């Protein structure tokens, strides 16, 4: 009986592989291995830093990450000074000051990232009427998670002959309806990595996907490392309770 139990528990945990109940049936996604998968998976800091660079150089032109504060970047391995200088590259509106005027100032580490547009309408106006969503939570907000994002960014293909592409749309095999208003954002060598990693398209997509997985779940590393200890403790405690139970019940029949 006990073996049976352990088997069930194992099956239960192995089934976590499919990140979400509602993503079953998303067969067209090519599954990827991510360093942050599984019980012992953690974010890879250098990949996050590269992904952050890609975000800033490529995606930030159209997409915000409004839920992320500059100080959160400490998790990527940046020092306080790094963070201060990154923040100071952004300007935000503050105020009113003593004279009652609004003013702009350089961002501080406690501020959140500022998006490229002042509001949804401006965003739509600049993108042919389509709205580029905020990317802070995008990995959690799509069935398939990181795999979806990876496949989406890799999903730009030749337009098949009899496919009717609407004006200002781009053919993408992963996006629902197979056409998306976002032009293919990533090509080989479009960024020059500060750490000199060769910037193939695949590498860039991996890095930016990792980065956005982090913005969606910045607690992941801490969560998993606490989790491993909690489960280990619970396994031992439960085994012990089982033994005590056996002992107390020995003479009941």
């Amino acid at each position, binding site marked *: 009986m006990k073996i049976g139990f352990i088997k069930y528990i194992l099956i*239960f945990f192995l089934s*976590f592989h499919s990140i*979400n*109940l*509602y993503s079953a049936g998303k067969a067209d996604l090519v599954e990827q291995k991510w360093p942050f998968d599984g019980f012992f998976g953690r974010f890879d800091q250098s990949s996050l830093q590269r992904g952050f660079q890609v975000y800033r150089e490529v995606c930030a032109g159209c997409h915000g990450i409004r839920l992320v504060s500059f100080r959160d970047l400490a998790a990527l391995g940046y020092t306080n000074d790094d963070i201060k200088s990154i923040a100071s590259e952004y300007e935000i509106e503050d105020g009113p000051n003593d004279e009652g005027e609004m003013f702009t100032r350089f961002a501080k580490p406690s501020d959140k990232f500022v998006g490229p547009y002042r509001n949804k309408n401006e965003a739509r106006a600049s993108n042919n009427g389509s709205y580029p969503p905020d990317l802070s939570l995008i990995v959690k907000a799509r069935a398939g998670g990181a795999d979806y994002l990876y496949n989406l960014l890799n999903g730009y293909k030749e337009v098949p002959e009899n496919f009717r592409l609407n004006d200002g749309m781009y053919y993408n095999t992963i996006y629902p309806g197979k056409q998306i208003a976002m032009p293919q954002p990533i090509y080989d060598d479009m960024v020059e990595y500060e750490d000199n990693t060769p910037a193939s398209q695949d590498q860039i997509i991996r890095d930016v996907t990792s980065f956005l997985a982090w913005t969606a779940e910045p*607690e992941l590393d801490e969560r998993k490392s606490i989790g491993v200890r909690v489960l280990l403790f*619970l396994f031992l405690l439960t085994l012990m309770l089982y033994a005590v139970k056996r002992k107390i019940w020995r003479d009941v029949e």
Partner: protein
Amino acid sequence: MQVKSNNYTGVKKWVDERLPVFSFVEDNLTNYPTPKNLSYFWNFGSLAGITLVIMIVTGILLAMQYTANSDLAFDSVERIMRDVNNGWLLRYLHMNGAHMFFIVVYIHIFRGLYYGSYKSPREILWMLGVTILLLMMATAFMGYVLPWGQMSFWGATVITNLFSAFPIIGESIVTFLWGGFSVDNPTLSRFFVLHYLLPFAIVGVVVLHIVALHMHGSNNPLGIDVKSDGDTIPFHPYYTVKDYYGLGVFLIFYLGLVFFAPNFLGHPDNYIPADPLVTPAHIVPEWYFLPFYAILRAVPDKLMGVLLMFSAVAVLFILPWLDTHKVRSSQFRPYYKQFFWLFFVNCFVLGWVGAMPAEGIYVTISRIATAYYFIFFLVIMPLLSKFEKGRVLPSSIASSVLSDKFESAPDQSFAK
């Protein structure tokens, strides 16, 4: 009025004569006689109680940081996730706690169905349980609205709109529920208030549930009454330790979800902020509502669908009068047992079609499954009560436990 005497001495005696705390604990927790043959399925009641406490504690802590305003709710939840110390843990405990609560309670209910725990003298106990289920559903439905994501918003819109199916008063009911002419800020704040309130109503009903339970004690896998002291053991230490062990196993599952797959059972769309102008491709409720959702959509007529869905829970209330067979446990009812398992599988089928789009083959499947859901209760149960001949019951719990050891009774003994 006569003072109840007790066997304590000193301060304990003095206190107990004035407020019977010690004798209460003794009567209801330590010496409380309990059938000795309870299986692990009897763990789920105490697990449900513990889950309720976890929900209330984590919920109150969340409420200290949460903002019930349609402009701020989504971001306040994200602030809990990102900026509040261990806020992510609190929120994931609460979110997955709701899932575990339903898993535990559904197992608890199927246990009752299988072993006939709703039969005399436990009818009121059973009805109180169904009341708890209803309150839980209302609580969870309103809780899911609070983070104000796309599924929160559209789930609330679809479900509250159901009431518009009622003739004449329908529209006014919906306006009344919304506090306006669409799901909006007033809806969110009243849902928050009710979501805070209802769990305490659940606590009240749980207390009654336990009072009713302790009138006649637990049912047991044989479904026969306790006949003598030989059939029972004191609750402590036997069932306290067994419940602790069960709690350990439960926590492994629950915290496994919390720490390693916290969003496994949730819908990704709820991480998109609510937008009244964008309807999600498929609006699906949380998994624990799916069987009822399937019943709702099985009929083409909206009002009929709504009535059927409510009847699906309401029918549980009258269960003790639909199944009047004298034998409680399915172990001694070979036919009921088969129909029960079919019903069990049928519930999963309903849950599965509930998640599918309401078109093509899925509609047919949902109709067949809905039909069986009601036929099981309204036709099969009364008929079996009349015609099924149960197997011979063991004379007592103690004797059955003994005979189990020497031969593989009671399976071979079909009654005439």
